[in-house]
Protein backbone atom coordinates (compact mmCIF):
# COMPACT_ATOMS: atom_id res chain seq x y z
CA UNK A 1 0.00 0.00 0.00
CA UNK A 2 1.30 3.42 -0.94
CA UNK A 3 0.39 6.31 1.37
CA UNK A 4 1.34 9.91 0.59
CA UNK A 5 1.60 12.56 3.27
CA UNK A 6 0.84 15.94 1.70
CA UNK A 7 -0.48 19.43 2.43
CA UNK A 8 -1.00 22.55 0.39
CA UNK A 9 0.53 24.75 3.06
CA UNK A 10 4.09 24.24 4.23
CA UNK A 11 5.08 23.67 7.83
CA UNK A 12 1.88 21.96 8.95
CA UNK A 13 3.62 18.75 10.02
CA UNK A 14 3.89 16.50 6.96
CA UNK A 15 7.31 15.19 7.87
CA UNK A 16 6.34 14.68 11.52
CA UNK A 17 3.31 12.59 10.57
CA UNK A 18 5.15 10.60 7.90
CA UNK A 19 8.15 9.84 10.09
CA UNK A 20 6.18 8.83 13.18
CA UNK A 21 3.79 6.69 11.18
CA UNK A 22 6.76 4.96 9.58
CA UNK A 23 8.39 4.28 12.95
CA UNK A 24 5.23 2.88 14.49
CA UNK A 25 4.45 0.66 11.50
CA UNK A 26 8.02 -0.58 11.28
CA UNK A 27 7.70 -1.71 14.89
CA UNK A 28 5.23 -4.39 13.80
CA UNK A 29 6.92 -7.52 12.47
CA UNK A 30 4.52 -8.17 9.67
CA UNK A 31 5.24 -4.81 8.03
CA UNK A 32 7.85 -4.00 5.44
CA UNK A 33 8.08 -0.20 5.51
CA UNK A 34 9.70 1.91 2.85
CA UNK A 35 10.06 5.67 3.27
CA UNK A 36 10.37 7.95 0.24
CA UNK A 37 11.33 11.57 0.88
CA UNK A 38 10.08 13.31 -2.25
CA UNK A 39 10.60 16.82 -0.91
CA UNK A 40 13.88 17.05 -2.78
CA UNK A 41 14.04 20.86 -2.60
CA UNK A 42 14.05 20.89 1.19
CA UNK A 43 14.29 17.29 2.41
CA UNK A 44 13.93 16.94 6.19
CA UNK A 45 12.88 13.36 6.99
CA UNK A 46 16.50 12.20 7.26
CA UNK A 47 16.95 14.59 10.22
CA UNK A 48 14.50 12.42 12.19
CA UNK A 49 15.02 8.95 10.71
CA UNK A 50 18.80 9.35 10.53
CA UNK A 51 19.16 6.66 7.87
CA UNK A 52 22.48 5.02 7.23
CA UNK A 53 23.03 5.92 3.58
CA UNK A 54 24.44 2.97 1.65
CA UNK A 55 24.26 4.23 -1.88
CA UNK A 56 24.40 7.64 -3.53
CA UNK A 57 23.94 8.23 -7.21
CA UNK A 58 23.95 11.23 -9.45
CA UNK A 59 20.68 12.14 -11.17
CA UNK A 60 21.12 13.50 -14.63
CA UNK A 61 18.87 14.73 -17.36
CA UNK A 62 19.94 14.39 -21.00
CA UNK A 63 20.82 17.69 -22.64
CA UNK A 64 21.85 18.29 -26.26
CA UNK A 65 25.48 18.23 -27.31
CA UNK A 66 26.14 19.80 -30.69
CA UNK A 67 28.66 18.44 -33.16
CA UNK A 68 29.86 21.76 -34.59
CA UNK A 69 31.25 20.00 -37.68
CA UNK A 70 27.90 18.56 -38.64
CA UNK A 71 25.65 21.50 -37.64
CA UNK A 72 24.67 23.75 -40.54
CA UNK A 73 22.69 26.20 -38.35
CA UNK A 74 19.40 25.40 -40.03
CA UNK A 75 17.58 26.35 -36.82
CA UNK A 76 15.25 23.33 -36.69
CA UNK A 77 16.25 22.53 -33.10
CA UNK A 78 15.57 26.06 -31.85
CA UNK A 79 12.24 26.08 -33.66
CA UNK A 80 11.17 22.76 -32.18
CA UNK A 81 12.32 23.31 -28.59
CA UNK A 82 9.27 24.07 -26.45
CA UNK A 83 11.40 25.49 -23.63
CA UNK A 84 13.52 28.01 -25.58
CA UNK A 85 16.59 26.13 -24.45
CA UNK A 86 18.29 26.50 -27.84
CA UNK A 87 18.98 29.58 -29.94
CA UNK A 88 20.56 29.74 -33.39
CA UNK A 89 21.99 33.07 -34.54
CA UNK A 90 23.59 33.05 -37.99
CA UNK A 91 26.40 30.57 -37.55
CA UNK A 92 26.27 30.18 -33.82
CA UNK A 93 24.21 27.84 -31.70
CA UNK A 94 23.59 28.38 -28.00
CA UNK A 95 22.25 25.82 -25.52
CA UNK A 96 20.76 26.91 -22.15
CA UNK A 97 21.02 23.78 -20.00
CA UNK A 98 18.83 25.07 -17.12
CA UNK A 99 15.88 25.51 -19.47
CA UNK A 100 16.18 22.04 -21.06
CA UNK A 101 13.66 19.42 -19.88
CA UNK A 102 15.50 16.59 -21.63
CA UNK A 103 12.61 15.70 -23.94
CA UNK A 104 14.92 14.67 -26.80
CA UNK A 105 13.00 16.47 -29.56
CA UNK A 106 16.03 18.39 -30.89
CA UNK A 107 18.13 15.23 -31.11
CA UNK A 108 15.34 13.35 -32.85
CA UNK A 109 14.60 16.01 -35.44
CA UNK A 110 18.05 17.40 -36.33
CA UNK A 111 18.29 16.89 -40.11
CA UNK A 112 22.10 16.76 -39.90
CA UNK A 113 22.17 14.28 -37.01
CA UNK A 114 24.47 16.82 -35.37
CA UNK A 115 22.96 16.46 -31.88
CA UNK A 116 23.75 13.75 -29.40
CA UNK A 117 22.88 13.78 -25.71
CA UNK A 118 25.00 14.10 -22.63
CA UNK A 119 23.99 13.86 -19.01
CA UNK A 120 23.83 16.93 -16.80
CA UNK A 121 23.59 16.42 -13.06
CA UNK A 122 20.65 18.15 -11.40
CA UNK A 123 20.70 16.34 -8.07
CA UNK A 124 21.46 13.17 -6.18
CA UNK A 125 19.55 10.12 -5.00
CA UNK A 126 20.26 8.43 -1.69
CA UNK A 127 19.34 4.96 -0.51
CA UNK A 128 19.75 3.66 2.97
CA UNK A 129 18.22 2.10 6.03
CA UNK A 130 16.91 3.36 9.32
CA UNK A 131 16.38 0.30 11.50
CA UNK A 132 14.02 -1.89 9.52
CA UNK A 133 12.79 1.02 7.41
CA UNK A 134 14.30 1.26 3.97
CA UNK A 135 14.83 4.86 2.97
CA UNK A 136 15.04 6.52 -0.43
CA UNK A 137 15.45 10.26 -0.76
CA UNK A 138 17.04 12.83 -2.99
CA UNK A 139 18.36 16.36 -3.16
CA UNK A 140 17.99 18.96 -5.85
CA UNK A 141 21.29 20.71 -6.52
CA UNK A 142 21.52 24.38 -5.54
CA UNK A 143 20.39 26.66 -8.36
CA UNK A 144 18.54 23.92 -10.26
CA UNK A 145 14.87 24.61 -11.00
CA UNK A 146 13.41 21.18 -11.78
CA UNK A 147 12.62 18.79 -8.95
CA UNK A 148 10.34 16.43 -10.88
CA UNK A 149 13.02 14.26 -12.58
CA UNK A 150 14.51 13.46 -9.15
CA UNK A 151 11.12 12.58 -7.72
CA UNK A 152 10.44 10.32 -10.72
CA UNK A 153 13.73 8.55 -10.06
CA UNK A 154 12.98 8.03 -6.35
CA UNK A 155 9.65 6.45 -7.17
CA UNK A 156 11.11 4.29 -9.92
CA UNK A 157 13.78 3.08 -7.52
CA UNK A 158 11.16 2.13 -4.98
CA UNK A 159 9.28 0.06 -7.55
CA UNK A 160 12.43 -1.86 -8.49
CA UNK A 161 12.95 -2.84 -4.87
CA UNK A 162 9.30 -3.71 -4.46
CA UNK A 163 9.44 -6.36 -7.20
CA UNK A 164 12.54 -8.06 -5.89
CA UNK A 165 11.17 -8.39 -2.38
CA UNK A 166 7.79 -9.76 -3.40
CA UNK A 167 9.44 -12.49 -5.45
CA UNK A 168 11.82 -13.52 -2.72
CA UNK A 169 9.38 -13.62 0.15
CA UNK A 170 6.48 -15.46 -1.37
CA UNK A 171 6.14 -17.66 1.73
CA UNK A 172 6.21 -15.06 4.46
CA UNK A 173 4.78 -12.24 2.47
CA UNK A 174 4.97 -9.10 4.53
CA UNK A 175 2.55 -6.25 4.32
CA UNK A 176 4.33 -3.70 2.17
CA UNK A 177 3.82 -0.09 3.10
CA UNK A 178 5.37 2.77 1.21
CA UNK A 179 5.17 6.17 2.88
CA UNK A 180 5.82 9.27 0.78
CA UNK A 181 6.80 12.62 2.28
CA UNK A 182 5.46 15.11 -0.29
CA UNK A 183 6.68 18.70 -0.88
CA UNK A 184 4.22 21.55 -0.13
CA UNK A 185 2.09 23.21 -2.81
CA UNK A 186 -0.12 21.94 -5.64
CA UNK A 187 2.06 22.02 -8.76
CA UNK A 188 4.31 19.59 -10.64
CA UNK A 189 6.54 18.25 -7.83
CA UNK A 190 3.44 17.53 -5.71
CA UNK A 191 1.68 15.69 -8.53
CA UNK A 192 4.79 13.70 -9.35
CA UNK A 193 5.05 12.65 -5.69
CA UNK A 194 1.44 11.65 -4.97
CA UNK A 195 0.64 10.10 -8.35
CA UNK A 196 -0.02 6.38 -8.02
CA UNK A 197 -0.70 6.47 -4.27
CA UNK A 198 -3.49 4.35 -2.79
CA UNK A 199 -4.28 6.92 -0.14
CA UNK A 200 -3.23 10.42 0.85
CA UNK A 201 -3.04 11.99 4.29
CA UNK A 202 -3.52 15.77 4.18
CA UNK A 203 -1.94 17.48 7.15
CA UNK A 204 -3.36 20.86 8.03
CA UNK A 205 -3.88 23.31 10.88
CA UNK A 206 -7.06 25.10 11.99
CA UNK A 207 -6.27 28.56 10.58
CA UNK A 208 -7.54 30.44 7.50
CA UNK A 209 -4.26 29.58 5.74
CA UNK A 210 -4.60 25.92 6.69
CA UNK A 211 -8.18 25.75 5.39
CA UNK A 212 -7.44 27.65 2.17
CA UNK A 213 -4.54 25.39 1.25
CA UNK A 214 -6.35 22.22 2.37
CA UNK A 215 -9.10 22.96 -0.15
CA UNK A 216 -6.47 23.30 -2.89
CA UNK A 217 -4.86 20.00 -1.88
CA UNK A 218 -8.26 18.29 -1.92
CA UNK A 219 -8.76 19.51 -5.50
CA UNK A 220 -5.44 17.97 -6.49
CA UNK A 221 -6.39 14.58 -5.03
CA UNK A 222 -9.83 14.67 -6.58
CA UNK A 223 -8.24 15.32 -9.93
CA UNK A 224 -5.88 12.39 -9.44
CA UNK A 225 -8.71 10.25 -8.00
CA UNK A 226 -6.84 9.34 -4.85
CA UNK A 227 -8.85 8.86 -1.64
CA UNK A 228 -7.82 11.13 1.22
CA UNK A 229 -8.32 12.05 4.83
CA UNK A 230 -7.14 14.84 7.11
CA UNK A 231 -4.76 15.02 10.04
CA UNK A 232 -5.51 18.15 12.03
CA UNK A 233 -2.36 19.37 13.70
CA UNK A 234 -2.39 21.94 16.54
CA UNK A 235 -6.12 21.19 16.66
CA UNK A 236 -6.68 23.24 19.81
CA UNK A 237 -5.53 26.60 18.43
CA UNK A 238 -7.14 28.73 15.73
CA UNK A 239 -10.79 28.26 14.78
CA UNK A 240 -13.17 25.46 13.85
CA UNK A 241 -13.51 26.15 10.13
CA UNK A 242 -11.38 23.21 9.03
CA UNK A 243 -13.51 20.82 11.07
CA UNK A 244 -16.67 22.36 9.62
CA UNK A 245 -15.29 22.05 6.11
CA UNK A 246 -14.45 18.40 6.70
CA UNK A 247 -17.87 17.69 8.16
CA UNK A 248 -19.73 19.44 5.34
CA UNK A 249 -17.70 17.73 2.64
CA UNK A 250 -17.51 14.24 4.16
CA UNK A 251 -13.75 14.42 4.55
CA UNK A 252 -12.70 12.08 7.37
CA UNK A 253 -10.50 13.49 10.12
CA UNK A 254 -8.10 10.63 10.76
CA UNK A 255 -6.24 12.13 13.69
CA UNK A 256 -6.19 15.36 15.71
CA UNK A 257 -3.07 16.41 17.56
CA UNK A 258 -3.06 19.29 20.06
CA UNK A 259 -0.37 21.95 20.17
CA UNK A 260 2.20 20.66 22.62
CA UNK A 261 5.25 22.77 23.36
CA UNK A 262 7.22 19.67 24.42
CA UNK A 263 6.58 18.18 21.00
CA UNK A 264 7.60 21.41 19.28
CA UNK A 265 10.85 21.38 21.24
CA UNK A 266 11.45 17.69 20.46
CA UNK A 267 10.81 18.47 16.81
CA UNK A 268 13.35 21.29 16.93
CA UNK A 269 15.94 18.73 18.04
CA UNK A 270 15.09 16.17 15.39
CA UNK A 271 13.37 13.78 17.80
CA UNK A 272 10.32 11.82 16.64
CA UNK A 273 7.21 12.18 18.87
CA UNK A 274 6.83 8.45 19.41
CA UNK A 275 10.28 8.24 20.94
CA UNK A 276 9.34 11.00 23.39
CA UNK A 277 5.95 9.89 24.58
CA UNK A 278 4.71 6.31 24.16
CA UNK A 279 1.07 7.36 24.35
CA UNK A 280 1.56 8.72 20.85
CA UNK A 281 2.34 5.25 19.50
CA UNK A 282 -1.27 4.27 20.04
CA UNK A 283 -2.44 7.41 18.23
CA UNK A 284 -0.38 6.60 15.17
CA UNK A 285 -1.56 2.97 15.16
CA UNK A 286 -5.10 4.32 15.29
CA UNK A 287 -4.25 6.68 12.42
CA UNK A 288 -3.16 3.72 10.30
CA UNK A 289 -6.27 1.75 11.21
CA UNK A 290 -8.41 4.71 10.20
CA UNK A 291 -6.61 4.90 6.88
CA UNK A 292 -7.22 1.20 6.20
CA UNK A 293 -10.88 1.63 7.09
CA UNK A 294 -11.28 4.67 4.83
CA UNK A 295 -9.32 3.01 2.04
CA UNK A 296 -11.67 0.01 2.13
CA UNK A 297 -14.72 2.27 2.03
CA UNK A 298 -13.36 4.20 -0.93
CA UNK A 299 -12.49 1.09 -2.93
CA UNK A 300 -15.99 -0.37 -2.74
Amino acid sequence: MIISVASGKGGTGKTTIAVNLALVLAGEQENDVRFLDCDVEEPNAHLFLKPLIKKRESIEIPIPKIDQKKCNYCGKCAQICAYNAMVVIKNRILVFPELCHGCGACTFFCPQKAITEQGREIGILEEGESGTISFIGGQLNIGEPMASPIIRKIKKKSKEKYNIRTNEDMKIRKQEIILIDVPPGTSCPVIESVKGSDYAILVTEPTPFGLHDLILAVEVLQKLQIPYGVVLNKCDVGNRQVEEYCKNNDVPILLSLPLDKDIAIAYSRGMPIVSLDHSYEQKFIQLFQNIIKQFKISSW
Partner: protein
Amino acid sequence: MKEIIVISGKGGTGKTVITASMAALAKNKVMGDCDVDASNLYLLLHPEVKEKHDFYAGLIPALDSMKCNQCGLCQELCRFDAIKIFPGQTIIDHVSCEGCSLCAQVCPQQAIQMKENHCGEWYISETKYGPLVYAKLGIAEENSGKLVTLVRQKAEEIARKRDLELIIIDGPPGIGCPLIASISGANLAVVVTEPTLSGIHDLERVIKVTQHFGVRSVVIINKFDLNLENTSQIENYCITHNIEVIGKMHFDNIITEALVQRLPVVEYSDNKITKEIKAIWQKIS
Protein backbone atom coordinates in the same frame (compact mmCIF):
# COMPACT_ATOMS: atom_id res chain seq x y z
CA MET B 1 12.74 51.50 -6.62
CA LYS B 2 13.52 48.62 -4.31
CA GLU B 3 12.17 45.06 -4.37
CA ILE B 4 12.14 43.03 -1.16
CA ILE B 5 11.21 39.37 -1.20
CA VAL B 6 10.34 37.27 1.84
CA ILE B 7 11.41 33.61 1.55
CA SER B 8 12.19 30.70 3.87
CA GLY B 9 13.14 27.43 2.19
CA LYS B 10 11.01 25.49 4.67
CA GLY B 11 7.28 26.18 4.52
CA GLY B 12 5.27 27.46 7.46
CA THR B 13 7.97 29.51 9.16
CA GLY B 14 5.96 32.74 9.02
CA LYS B 15 6.67 34.33 5.61
CA THR B 16 3.14 35.53 4.98
CA VAL B 17 2.54 36.72 8.55
CA ILE B 18 5.68 38.87 8.32
CA THR B 19 4.95 40.08 4.76
CA ALA B 20 1.45 41.20 5.78
CA SER B 21 2.85 43.16 8.72
CA MET B 22 5.45 44.78 6.47
CA ALA B 23 2.62 45.73 4.12
CA ALA B 24 0.86 47.44 7.04
CA LEU B 25 4.02 49.26 8.16
CA ALA B 26 5.58 50.36 4.86
CA LYS B 27 4.63 53.48 2.95
CA ASN B 28 4.37 54.00 -0.82
CA LYS B 29 4.54 50.39 -1.84
CA VAL B 30 2.96 47.67 -3.93
CA MET B 31 2.62 44.05 -2.79
CA GLY B 32 2.97 40.87 -4.80
CA ASP B 33 2.31 37.25 -3.83
CA CYS B 34 4.67 34.89 -5.65
CA ASP B 35 3.50 31.76 -3.86
CA VAL B 36 1.28 31.02 -6.84
CA ASP B 37 0.66 27.41 -5.75
CA ALA B 38 -1.01 28.38 -2.51
CA SER B 39 -1.24 32.14 -2.22
CA ASN B 40 -2.25 33.26 1.27
CA LEU B 41 -1.32 36.94 1.52
CA TYR B 42 -4.66 38.08 0.15
CA LEU B 43 -6.42 36.36 3.06
CA LEU B 44 -4.86 38.94 5.40
CA LEU B 45 -5.03 42.00 3.14
CA HIS B 46 -8.69 41.65 1.98
CA PRO B 47 -8.24 42.90 -1.58
CA GLU B 48 -10.86 44.27 -3.90
CA VAL B 49 -10.07 42.73 -7.29
CA LYS B 50 -9.81 45.36 -10.03
CA GLU B 51 -8.56 43.23 -12.90
CA LYS B 52 -8.68 39.50 -13.47
CA HIS B 53 -6.67 37.89 -16.27
CA ASP B 54 -6.25 34.39 -17.61
CA PHE B 55 -2.78 32.97 -17.68
CA TYR B 56 -1.71 30.90 -20.65
CA ALA B 57 1.67 29.21 -20.77
CA GLY B 58 3.12 26.21 -22.50
CA LEU B 59 1.31 23.83 -24.80
CA ILE B 60 -0.80 20.74 -24.32
CA PRO B 61 -1.41 18.00 -26.86
CA ALA B 62 -4.91 17.38 -28.19
CA LEU B 63 -5.50 14.02 -29.84
CA ASP B 64 -7.73 13.46 -32.83
CA SER B 65 -8.75 9.87 -32.16
CA MET B 66 -10.23 9.53 -35.65
CA LYS B 67 -6.80 10.05 -37.16
CA CYS B 68 -4.79 8.03 -34.64
CA ASN B 69 -4.03 4.47 -35.75
CA GLN B 70 -2.24 3.42 -32.53
CA CYS B 71 1.13 3.02 -34.26
CA GLY B 72 2.82 3.61 -30.91
CA LEU B 73 5.63 5.93 -32.06
CA CYS B 74 4.60 8.74 -29.70
CA GLN B 75 4.46 6.38 -26.72
CA GLU B 76 7.89 5.03 -27.54
CA LEU B 77 9.49 8.48 -27.83
CA CYS B 78 7.77 10.29 -24.95
CA ARG B 79 10.28 10.74 -22.13
CA PHE B 80 7.62 11.62 -19.59
CA ASP B 81 5.52 8.44 -19.94
CA ALA B 82 2.55 10.64 -20.75
CA ILE B 83 1.11 8.51 -23.56
CA LYS B 84 -0.44 5.10 -23.09
CA ILE B 85 -1.72 3.08 -26.03
CA PHE B 86 -4.35 0.43 -25.48
CA PRO B 87 -6.00 -1.60 -28.20
CA GLY B 88 -8.24 0.84 -30.00
CA GLN B 89 -7.46 3.72 -27.64
CA THR B 90 -4.69 6.23 -27.06
CA ILE B 91 -4.68 8.13 -23.79
CA ILE B 92 -2.63 11.26 -23.12
CA ASP B 93 -1.97 11.91 -19.46
CA HIS B 94 -1.96 15.69 -19.18
CA VAL B 95 -0.60 15.58 -15.67
CA SER B 96 2.59 13.79 -16.76
CA CYS B 97 2.93 15.74 -20.03
CA GLU B 98 5.54 18.50 -20.01
CA GLY B 99 4.37 20.03 -23.28
CA CYS B 100 7.53 19.35 -25.32
CA SER B 101 5.51 18.75 -28.55
CA LEU B 102 7.68 15.85 -29.69
CA CYS B 103 4.58 13.63 -30.09
CA ALA B 104 2.78 16.19 -32.25
CA GLN B 105 5.83 16.70 -34.46
CA VAL B 106 6.54 13.02 -34.92
CA CYS B 107 3.03 11.61 -35.46
CA PRO B 108 2.87 10.10 -38.98
CA GLN B 109 -0.91 10.57 -38.99
CA GLN B 110 -0.76 14.15 -37.73
CA ALA B 111 -3.29 13.13 -35.14
CA ILE B 112 -1.88 15.35 -32.39
CA GLN B 113 -2.16 19.13 -32.30
CA MET B 114 -0.57 21.32 -29.66
CA LYS B 115 -2.87 23.83 -28.05
CA GLU B 116 -2.25 26.77 -25.76
CA ASN B 117 -2.61 25.79 -22.13
CA HIS B 118 -4.78 27.79 -19.77
CA CYS B 119 -3.01 27.20 -16.49
CA GLY B 120 -4.10 29.86 -14.09
CA GLU B 121 -5.34 33.34 -13.33
CA TRP B 122 -3.78 36.51 -12.00
CA TYR B 123 -5.29 39.54 -10.34
CA ILE B 124 -4.58 43.21 -9.81
CA SER B 125 -6.31 44.38 -6.67
CA GLU B 126 -6.53 47.23 -4.19
CA THR B 127 -6.19 46.83 -0.44
CA LYS B 128 -6.25 49.39 2.35
CA TYR B 129 -2.47 49.04 2.42
CA GLY B 130 -1.97 49.61 -1.32
CA PRO B 131 -2.16 47.62 -4.55
CA LEU B 132 -1.65 43.84 -4.48
CA VAL B 133 -0.84 41.56 -7.42
CA TYR B 134 -1.49 37.87 -6.86
CA ALA B 135 -2.21 34.75 -8.84
CA LYS B 136 -3.67 31.31 -8.72
CA LEU B 137 -1.98 28.53 -10.62
CA GLY B 138 -4.45 25.92 -11.86
CA ILE B 139 -4.55 22.66 -9.95
CA ALA B 140 -1.80 20.27 -11.04
CA GLU B 141 -0.42 22.77 -13.55
CA GLU B 142 3.13 23.54 -14.57
CA ASN B 143 4.77 26.86 -15.44
CA SER B 144 4.69 28.26 -11.92
CA GLY B 145 7.99 30.03 -12.64
CA LYS B 146 6.45 31.95 -15.54
CA LEU B 147 3.46 33.00 -13.45
CA VAL B 148 5.79 34.17 -10.66
CA THR B 149 7.71 36.28 -13.18
CA LEU B 150 4.44 37.75 -14.43
CA VAL B 151 3.34 38.74 -10.90
CA ARG B 152 6.67 40.50 -10.35
CA GLN B 153 6.47 42.29 -13.71
CA LYS B 154 2.96 43.57 -13.02
CA ALA B 155 3.91 44.74 -9.52
CA GLU B 156 6.84 46.61 -11.01
CA GLU B 157 4.65 48.21 -13.69
CA ILE B 158 2.28 49.46 -10.99
CA ALA B 159 5.17 50.81 -8.95
CA ARG B 160 6.48 52.74 -11.96
CA LYS B 161 3.10 54.05 -12.99
CA ARG B 162 2.22 55.28 -9.49
CA ASP B 163 5.71 56.33 -8.57
CA LEU B 164 5.97 53.91 -5.63
CA GLU B 165 9.37 53.30 -4.09
CA LEU B 166 8.95 49.80 -2.80
CA ILE B 167 7.80 46.36 -3.93
CA ILE B 168 7.16 43.81 -1.17
CA ILE B 169 6.90 40.21 -2.35
CA ASP B 170 5.69 37.16 -0.42
CA GLY B 171 7.78 34.31 -1.79
CA PRO B 172 7.19 30.57 -2.28
CA PRO B 173 8.74 27.79 -0.18
CA GLY B 174 11.42 25.48 -1.56
CA ILE B 175 14.47 26.20 -3.70
CA GLY B 176 13.26 25.16 -7.17
CA CYS B 177 11.68 26.84 -10.17
CA PRO B 178 9.22 29.27 -8.46
CA LEU B 179 11.76 30.32 -5.82
CA ILE B 180 14.43 31.01 -8.44
CA ALA B 181 11.93 32.99 -10.51
CA SER B 182 11.00 34.99 -7.38
CA ILE B 183 14.45 36.02 -6.24
CA SER B 184 16.44 36.61 -9.41
CA GLY B 185 17.19 40.32 -9.68
CA ALA B 186 15.55 41.27 -6.36
CA ASN B 187 17.31 43.85 -4.15
CA LEU B 188 16.93 41.99 -0.89
CA ALA B 189 15.80 38.56 0.27
CA VAL B 190 14.44 38.42 3.82
CA VAL B 191 14.79 34.79 4.92
CA VAL B 192 12.45 33.72 7.71
CA THR B 193 13.63 30.69 9.65
CA GLU B 194 12.90 28.86 12.91
CA PRO B 195 15.30 27.24 15.39
CA THR B 196 14.56 23.63 14.44
CA LEU B 197 16.90 21.20 12.71
CA SER B 198 14.62 21.33 9.65
CA GLY B 199 14.60 25.13 9.74
CA ILE B 200 18.40 25.29 9.91
CA HIS B 201 18.86 22.68 7.19
CA ASP B 202 16.47 24.47 4.84
CA LEU B 203 17.84 27.93 5.67
CA GLU B 204 21.33 26.88 4.65
CA ARG B 205 20.08 25.53 1.32
CA VAL B 206 18.02 28.59 0.45
CA ILE B 207 20.86 30.95 1.45
CA LYS B 208 23.11 29.09 -0.98
CA VAL B 209 20.55 29.68 -3.71
CA THR B 210 20.42 33.43 -2.98
CA GLN B 211 24.21 33.52 -3.11
CA HIS B 212 24.22 31.53 -6.34
CA PHE B 213 22.00 34.16 -7.94
CA GLY B 214 23.80 37.09 -6.32
CA VAL B 215 20.88 38.29 -4.18
CA ARG B 216 21.72 39.89 -0.83
CA SER B 217 19.96 38.24 2.09
CA VAL B 218 19.16 38.96 5.73
CA VAL B 219 17.63 36.58 8.29
CA ILE B 220 14.73 36.70 10.76
CA ILE B 221 14.56 33.96 13.42
CA ASN B 222 10.93 33.29 14.24
CA LYS B 223 9.95 31.46 17.47
CA PHE B 224 13.57 31.89 18.56
CA ASP B 225 12.82 30.95 22.19
CA LEU B 226 11.64 27.48 21.16
CA ASN B 227 15.23 26.28 21.15
CA LEU B 228 17.91 28.77 22.20
CA GLU B 229 20.74 26.40 21.34
CA ASN B 230 19.56 26.14 17.75
CA THR B 231 19.00 29.91 17.66
CA SER B 232 22.62 30.56 18.52
CA GLN B 233 23.64 27.97 15.94
CA ILE B 234 21.73 30.00 13.32
CA GLU B 235 23.35 33.21 14.56
CA ASN B 236 26.79 31.66 14.30
CA TYR B 237 26.04 30.39 10.82
CA CYS B 238 24.99 33.90 9.81
CA ILE B 239 28.14 35.47 11.28
CA THR B 240 30.42 33.07 9.41
CA HIS B 241 28.53 33.69 6.19
CA ASN B 242 28.40 37.42 6.66
CA ILE B 243 24.60 37.58 6.81
CA GLU B 244 22.87 39.97 9.16
CA VAL B 245 20.22 38.63 11.55
CA ILE B 246 17.82 41.58 11.49
CA GLY B 247 15.52 40.32 14.21
CA LYS B 248 14.22 37.57 16.42
CA MET B 249 10.59 36.93 17.26
CA HIS B 250 9.12 35.11 20.27
CA PHE B 251 6.91 32.04 20.08
CA ASP B 252 3.52 33.65 20.70
CA ASN B 253 -0.04 32.45 20.15
CA ILE B 254 -1.09 36.00 19.36
CA ILE B 255 0.15 35.30 15.82
CA THR B 256 -2.44 32.54 15.42
CA GLU B 257 -5.11 34.76 16.96
CA ALA B 258 -4.37 37.55 14.47
CA LEU B 259 -4.43 34.96 11.69
CA VAL B 260 -7.86 33.74 12.73
CA GLN B 261 -9.08 37.37 12.69
CA ARG B 262 -7.40 37.63 9.27
CA LEU B 263 -5.38 40.68 10.25
CA PRO B 264 -1.68 41.55 10.03
CA VAL B 265 -0.41 40.93 13.56
CA VAL B 266 0.86 44.52 13.90
CA GLU B 267 -2.71 45.73 13.41
CA TYR B 268 -4.18 43.18 15.78
CA SER B 269 -2.06 43.72 18.84
CA ASP B 270 0.43 46.02 20.42
CA ASN B 271 2.36 43.42 22.37
CA LYS B 272 5.94 42.17 22.25
CA ILE B 273 5.65 40.51 18.82
CA THR B 274 4.39 43.73 17.25
CA LYS B 275 7.32 45.66 18.72
CA GLU B 276 9.72 43.03 17.42
CA ILE B 277 8.27 43.23 13.92
CA LYS B 278 8.34 47.04 13.98
CA ALA B 279 12.00 46.96 14.98
CA ILE B 280 12.71 44.55 12.11
CA TRP B 281 10.94 46.84 9.67
CA GLN B 282 12.98 49.83 10.94
CA LYS B 283 16.13 47.93 10.02
CA ILE B 284 14.95 47.05 6.53
CA SER B 285 13.54 50.44 5.54
